[in-house]
């Protein structure tokens, strides 16, 4: 973050003069030493990190507020968006993956893989903009942001939660399309490995119906690699959500990260990157734990 030339103060003076404010160089100098920006990089970094360990994420230069206050709700919303996308992806990818594996090399299979790839291939920021435009112009729906105006600053209540869900479907669909494509292919590959296995024939010899047999045995076995891939996909969803949030002006971590990076607001930007990374590592941890729960082989070995 420190790499770009100049620092917060040069960015501040730039944005002010851009709007006709008259800011004197000497005044800028006083702001710089008040924020401790004139100290060497390592000193600043050490002060910040030691603060983070004890829960104080430093103060944002631009907003003169503790970073903790600023990013609190935004990180929570980022988490909600990511979780919603994961659930959406699972709900979509699982059945489609199973269908395309069972109906291998039929029209249905090719159709689904193509649609899946289209989801993977369309740049999601483009999809976001077009969806937003269509939403506003043709349906007149209030699309921007995660809350309609009256709920934006309201305390957390069930009504606000309902309002959140009403707005959440657009970003979730956009993010979901790109991630579900790869998951469908993984599920299909896993299932194709399991179908010819002998325990499937044993189950058939026991007299189970095809559908029941499919669901209880091969799908159940193919589920465990499926869950572990979700863990690996979490970071991808997090970073994808940054772009989509910027386009849709969502009150999540994305837009604020971009503006803080451009304003070179070090502590704010640093905290975001730190927390986003922790979030994705947590995602992977959760998926590993889930894997152990689902697959006895992992548990008992």
């Amino acid at each position, binding site marked *: 973050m420190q790499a770009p030339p100049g620092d917060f103060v040069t960015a501040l003076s730039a944005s002010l003069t851009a709007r006709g404010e008259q800011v004197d160089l000497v005044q800028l100098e006083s702001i710089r030493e008040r924020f401790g920006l004139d100290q060497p990089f390592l000193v600043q970094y050490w002060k910040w990190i030691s603060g983070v360990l004890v829960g104080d994420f430093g103060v944002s230069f631009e907003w003169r507020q503790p970073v903790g206050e600023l990013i609190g709700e935004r990180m929570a919303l980022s988490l909600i968006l990511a979780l919603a996308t994961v659930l959406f992806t699972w709900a979509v990818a699982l059945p489609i993956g199973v269908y395309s594996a069972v109906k291998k090399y039929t029209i249905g299979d090719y159709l689904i893989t193509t649609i899946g790839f289209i989801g993977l291939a369309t740049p999601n920021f483009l999809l976001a903009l077009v969806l937003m435009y269509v939403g506003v*112009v043709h349906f007149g729906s209030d699309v921007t942001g995660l809350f309609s105006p009256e709920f934006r600053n309201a305390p957390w209540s069930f009504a606000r939660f309902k309002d959140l869900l009403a707005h959440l479907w657009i970003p979730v669909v956009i993010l979901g399309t790109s991630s579900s494509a790869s998951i469908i292919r993984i599920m299909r590959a896993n299932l194709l490995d399991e179908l010819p296995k002998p325990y499937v024939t044993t189950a058939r010899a026991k007299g189970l119906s095809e559908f029941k047999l499919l669901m209880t045995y091969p799908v159940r076995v193919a589920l465990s690699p499926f869950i572990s891939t979700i863990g690996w996909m979490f970071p991808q969803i997090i970073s994808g959500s940054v772009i989509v949030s910027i386009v849709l002006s969502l009150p999540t971590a994305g837009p604020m990260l971009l503006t803080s990076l451009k304003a070179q607001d070090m502590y704010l930007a640093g905290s975001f990157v730190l927390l986003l990374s922790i979030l994705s590592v947590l995602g992977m941890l959760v998926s590993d734990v889930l894997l152990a729960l689902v697959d006895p082989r992992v548990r008992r070995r």
Partner: protein
Amino acid sequence: MAIALPAFALEYKEAPELAAAVAAGELPPVADRLPDEPQVVAPFNAIGKYGNELRFGLSGQANHDPIRAWGNMGLVQHDYDSNYTEVIPHVAESFDVNDDNTVFTFYLRKGMKWSDGTPFTAEDIEFAVNDILLHEDLQPVSPVWSAGGEVVEFRKIDDYTVEFSFTVPYSEFLYVLADRRYLQPTLYQKAYCSRAHPDYNPNLEAELEANNLTDWRDYLRKLSGDPHIVGIRFENPDRPTLEAWKIVVPYKGGSTQVILERNPFFWQVDTEGNQLPYINKLVGLIYGDPEGMLLGAIGGDNDLGYTIIGTPANRPLLAKTAKHHGSELYPATAIGGTSLLFQLNLTHKDPELRALFNEKNFRVALSIGFDRQEVIDTALFGDGVPWHNAPFEDSPMYHERYATQYLKFDKNEANSLLDGIGLGERNSDGIRLLPSGRPVHFVVEAIDRPPERIDQLEMMTQQWRDNLGVDVRPNITETSLMFSRVNNNNHDAAIWSDFASWLQGRVPYSLVPLEFDSRWGIAWVDWYKSDGKRGEEPPDHIKKRVYLYQMSKGAPTAEARIDYFQQIAEIAADQFETFGVSKNMTNYGLKKIALKNVRPSNPGSNQYPLSLQRPWTYFWDTESGNRP
């Protein structure tokens, strides 16, 4: 227009919400809330109805302009009806200026109160000026507060009279007090803000600790706004203000909307004694990026707005969708200047490029070397007139030669001019060569917004390469990176756009290199800024212009000021340092048709914000009086 009506003849009325509060005993009756003689304002269309809310949009990084557009409370303000050439009383009831423009006396309204009910007296102004503006921790103060090298001297004559005096004539000072950037005198209530002030609050250290701050200046900013950047004042809902609406949902990092509500002690009434403002609440929706704001506007979420969304490219879209939510196009007029100001770096560090740029014929060749009409038809959809960075014909400041010389496209003349200054040779790609054999190649610095400015630049550089064999490359970068390069004089050329109206309150930076905006002579700007300690001494013709400009600040009459500017423009026309592309044209934002008392148009530049129209007289012309 503000006419002084005898206030006592009126029976005051107030908004229903306030009447209820008065009945419940939370508020004193309206008569006690208003000053003895409240300012009486005649609404533009008609007497309004009290109504619920008005919505506006804002976007971008720490952008306060759209919020403060609704209320700037200077002692005086520009007069909308005199096209901003005159200054009229505002917070001050009246004012006198001595005949040699050195002493300015202001008379306040008796009984006028802050939004928390405490009386507003000369003591508050004295505290704001002497204890904050001129406090040594906040030096140096902006040059506008001094004249002839001497800082302003402030004297409180009695509870309702104050006096500002200078050693030399400074007629422009009234325009400084009217400017939205210098509202310090009426910004700080002594009782409320003294807790943050070292001289008044003994246990300041403890309070700083409690708010985990380390510096009293941060505490002052948190309470009542940044003393240097007055725009930053909407973070504290308890801040006592004189504005028509006070902040309720503050503008903080990460907030998605800002809400301001009616100030029950607002000191203005309409001609029928109704306490203003008519509209109860202002809701500012914060968007992540300009596209989001445009979408909000198309969806009807912006009742009155022209900044950011009002570009020529958006106009067809705004026009088409306005019908769906009862809006109409709202003109944001131009007060002068050009859509793209092209500035070659005349104090370039590379001697060969410096010599080339300082050749007047080179600059003339560039100006007449591209087809302005083609650029206007393409990048500005034909909505433009070739023009340099100067006031328009209808402005008293108009200088015909400086505004219109070398505008006609003449490819052959341009090429012969270039041959004339020794650039006859060309390399295999057809690019002209400098005497040293180096190809004529340089980079123009530009920021990534607004899009139509980049389009104009791309077309100009394309035509220079094809028509003249001069290889100019645009380098489109992020604002802060461009400034860190240009301010250190490491650029070849740079572009911006400017509203050169040459009216008071703004340095005409394409005439005199006194601010870092004058990117054509950064070394000279350094020289003036450091009183000669840094930078480069400018040639005589620039020194003469700066002298004339300093004199214009003290010009006793408007005609004297115009004469000074005509002389400056005459010298600048001879030098022809910079050139423009097209007149700044009227851009169009959106306004709800049902919103009344709104002036037919407003200048696009944020130097003359909406507040000069007295937006507290706006009202919803619907039977419920509420937003449709």
